[in-house]
């Protein structure tokens, strides 16, 4: 178990994109593309083990050492604040954390602001810095309907292209922070698998620089 480099990838499009980068960096594992429903894939030659996890769980696997490294969006890192190394911005999964509200929304500053979000921690910190009294409504999905149904005044959510907002007659009021996927590492694993991780970092760096030059 221990001489393998364990890598947690977020299930879905982002994870697949990131795997392609890792494979290009020399950490490939052909089996992963076989379309099987397995969740764990190993390459005995390169001694890497990939596994798919729910995106919000990736930092947990890494923080607790079940994965040595992993890939997670900055939004998830800000929300859960795991004690891990944030080694690299992979420049994929780019979007932004925003405050959005129905078009033409005007904030009533006399009242407590009702905020619906999947990211209560981020929302709380953002409004705390402004000393704004808010009421957080934690939802797990379809955040956009909250202001339409008057469940909340605004939402704090990820905006990629803005299409979903537009279709629901919402607009961005304010950008909180830009988001992208980050390569994270377990602090202890980093000490004992340092050479492998350093090699991966270097290759990824070269790939990213090349892409930026394009």
């Amino acid at each position, binding site marked *: 178990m*221990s001489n393998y480099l364990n890598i947690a990838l977020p299930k879905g499009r982002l994870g697949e994109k990131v795997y392609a980068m890792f494979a290009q960096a020399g950490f490939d594992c052909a089996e992963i593309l076989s379309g099987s429903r397995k969740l764990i894939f190993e390459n005995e030659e390169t001694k890497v083990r990939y596994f798919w996890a729910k995106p919000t769980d990736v930092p947990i696997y890494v923080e607790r050492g079940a994965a040595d490294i992993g890939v997670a969006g900055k939004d998830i890192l800000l929300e859960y604040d795991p*004690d891990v190394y944030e*080694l690299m911005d992979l420049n994929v999964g780019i979007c932004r954390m925003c405050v959005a509200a129905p078009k033409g929304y005007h904030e009533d500053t006399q009242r407590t602001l009702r905020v619906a979000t999947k990211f209560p921690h981020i929302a709380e910190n953002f409004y705390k810095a402004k000393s704004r009294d808010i009421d957080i409504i934690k939802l797990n999905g379809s955040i956009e309907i909250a202001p339409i149904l008057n469940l909340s005044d605004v939402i704090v959510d990820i905006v990629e292209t803005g299409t979903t907002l537009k279709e629901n007659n919402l607009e961005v009021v304010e950008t909180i922070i830009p988001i992208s996927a980050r390569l994270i590492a377990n602090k*202890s694993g980093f000490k*004992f698998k340092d050479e492998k991780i350093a090699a991966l970092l270097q290759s990824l760096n070269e790939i990213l620089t090349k892409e930026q030059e394009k």
Partner: protein
Amino acid sequence: MCDITEALKRDESLSFELRALYNKYGYKLFKMSKFEAYDLYAQNKEFLGGENMITFTDNKGTLLALKPDVTLSIIKSLPNDLSEVQKICYNENVYRQQKGAGFKEILQTGLECVGEIDLYHTVEVLSLAEMSLKKIGAPYVLEISHMGLILAAMEACEIDKRDYDEVLGYIKAKNQGQMRAFCQREKIFAQGSKTLLTFITAFGQWQKVVNQFVPLNAKMAEAIDELKNICQILSTVGIDKNIRLDFSCLNDLNYYNGIIFQGFIQGVPHHILSGGRYDQLAQKMGKNCGAIGFAISLNELDYLAKEKEKYDVDVLLIYDETTDPADILKAIADFTQNKESVSVQKNIPAKLKYRTVYTMKNGEAKKYE
């Protein structure tokens, strides 16, 4: 299976081994009470990482806390004007809130060296930390950092004090990208930015790391020299093999002013040993002296648990109403003399894992086929 040493769990036996090691170096065991006045901790909350603690009132209405830390109590117990260096070790349970969870009891073992701390005391404590990690018996790394060096660099870069936490956060997370962005945003001069980034990029064997720093002021030069001297001494006595410099190992600036260090064991996901030079805490508590020490959380060794023991007992001994209890006791004596453990039961328990079954027949234990 029944020997005392074998009956002890690894964290238990290790706590005795470590105590013996510290005693050998003249560290006296300090036994503290289970709780302390809450004020002691409230005044130094950042030292405890801002954690909550379990509080309650005594019969006079004084607010007490179950101890979340040992160091504060030890420092408090010492006289204000120390003429000699005090060497103290401890082995205590502390109560701390786990991130996102309830309180946890943590078995901590460690030592404190308080008084006029010089280079010798620093390397003594570091080598004891190294020996402690070695005793655990798994691959380990002792990381050394220097709060004074980082602070001096931040001063040289004229970083606003309010931004210290942000900068320390980036160093702690080895976050190069955001450190670079910070340097640009704050328009930090080229050499300064380079130094701040070096705290992230430079880690590993000390010889390789120390020379990457170009001192920006006298305080930095002094701290670099101290790090060099310490590593040189550790290298002379041949214990630098598992020692690394790594500045992501950080602690609170308000309390730690010099060398700080953390120990990692392969298989345990976070640091197991943590320590450093904390003169500022000692001084804040009215002691006119310096202090250095470390603590090991022995609970973390649970991560290293070997394969579960295959059997709960060696022998399962079955008896019935007709068996004379004296015969059972005699039979047990025979088994235990052969270092076999026995569970005596009337029926076979559903969840017990045993090596062999014996039944009592005619006053004797017979192997059941």
